[in-house]
């Protein structure tokens, strides 16, 4: 029984008893915070981010490229992050956006593929199944107002067919013979289209590598969140092959005259 009539029917909180008219022992303390605020957290922005992923179709399959940088804001924080992840024997996913969310997606898919593997019945999940699954995961998370902050490219080759498709944090999907995420969709996509569209069935492996190298170089010149250290994934009838990290020759002499870049005195 609360013997203080002033308290009756009121929330027991300092907000309503600012002057402490009752002994402290009689006043209940509500903590002054939302009890759920620590338990329910939603992603509102990406933290450690990767930049563009590029992907093209070519004669024998699909080729993808992504650099090894994970940025912390504008800081080039981690320089040895692999952003191309093999899923099974026919598929690679490449991710831009939040790298912790990407690691979660990798764990999710690895678990899925282990479950599929343990069935041991000759059936396996190919690139199109993985893309479908991912699109549902991404859309379900955005619908919880807690998106996985990524733009993903799923590339693969199964049963003689090339597969290349995109899905992002909203669950939006589309496919084309060239795809790029992030800054690459502005800078590299036009270059890729010009080089690839209409030539998907004639481009050789070497030509495909050259196209991606050229685009990665342009991105490195233009994208301030990129790194001249990247990997190329090849998915063909031979399965998945992800290269060691490599870089391209760049030439910055043109920049000497730019104010703020070189050793200017003024």
């Amino acid at each position: 029984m609360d013997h203080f009539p002033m308290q009756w029917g009121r929330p027991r909180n300092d907000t309503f008893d600012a002057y402490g008219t009752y002994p402290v022992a009689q006043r209940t303390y509500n903590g002054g915070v939302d009890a759920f605020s620590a338990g329910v957290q939603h992603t509102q922005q990406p933290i450690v981010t990767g930049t563009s992923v590029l992907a093209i179709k070519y004669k024998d399959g699909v080729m993808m490229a992504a650099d090894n940088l994970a940025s912390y804001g504008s800081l080039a924080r981690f320089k040895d992050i692999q952003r191309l992840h093999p899923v099974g024997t026919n598929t690679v996913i490449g991710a831009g956006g939040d790298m912790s969310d990407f690691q979660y997606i990798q764990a999710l898919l690895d678990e899925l593929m282990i479950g599929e593997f343990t069935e041991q019945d000759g059936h396996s999940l190919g690139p199109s199944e993985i893309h479908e699954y991912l699109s549902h995961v991404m859309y379900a998370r955005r619908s919880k107002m807690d998106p996985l902050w990524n733009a993903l490219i799923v590339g693969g080759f199964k049963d003689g067919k090339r597969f290349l498709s995109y899905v992002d944090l909203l669950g939006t999907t589309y496919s084309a013979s060239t795809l790029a995420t992030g800054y690459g969709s502005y800078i590299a996509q036009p270059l890729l289209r010009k080089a690839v569209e209409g030539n998907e069935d004639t481009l050789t492996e070497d030509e495909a590598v050259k196209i991606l190298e050229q685009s990665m170089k342009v991105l490195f010149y233009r994208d301030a969140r990129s790194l001249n250290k990247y990997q190329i994934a090849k998915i063909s009838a031979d399965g998945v092959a992800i290269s060691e990290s490599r870089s391209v020759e760049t030439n910055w002499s043109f920049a000497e005259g730019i104010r703020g870049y070189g050793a200017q005195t003024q």
Partner: protein
Amino acid sequence: MFRNTYDSDNTVFSPQGRLHQVEYALEAVKQGSAAVGLRSKSHSILLALKRSTGELASYQQKMFRIDDHVGIAIAGLTSDARVLSNFMRQQAMSSKMAFNRPVPVNRLVSAIADKAQVNTQEYGRRPYGVGFLVIGQDQSGPHLYEFSPSGNSYEYYAMSIGARSQSAKTYLEKHYESFADCSLEDLIQHGLHALRETLQQDKDLNVNNTSIGVVGAPSMHEKTTGVSFRILEGEIIQPFLDTMIPKEVPGAAAAPPPAASTDEDVQMAE
């Protein structure tokens, strides 16, 4: 009937190491009318004998479509079959939804076998009183499985379940080696011959009491062009019944006339 001390609870073994409730459930499958399944390199088919409770009643449905690529024929308690087929449809839909992939047939069969097994082990439950023949086509080709209430499932070249299915099995065992390269028409003919073995004397297969389920390219008697599972019933199966070779009845002067007339009004008796 066979009552003994060890059959009131399905979780208790008899001293002979048997679960009587499970065996009674297998008995329920044998009470159901027969179903036959066959497989070739390109097709899987089901044939089933439908029963009606009387001349005023319609024939009980024996086949169910699960998905575009899977169908079942049942023997036993139809109500239990509907529970399981509903579950199979959900599994098929969820595979379609999550992966845009038709569910692999073996996984579908394993899923219901696992469900049935639980019922043979947990307190307070009863086994399903129904057996299935499941046909389907997936990445690894056409398949035929048998599912039984004991929780077992096996893949077969050809199989029969239900009343007097042993006679059909005998026919299938004699001919199964030729099934792999059969055309759909020949496969159905074999199936009808096998199903005929399960009939009582003086009974015949006709357009009313026979169901045919097919996955694979259509036969020349069908109007469809699709390869997905379909159930053939009624007039459309007359051309298949016509292909049957009359059975030699020992002692009878002449073989019975091939198949029934198309008069639906008086053909209901079974």
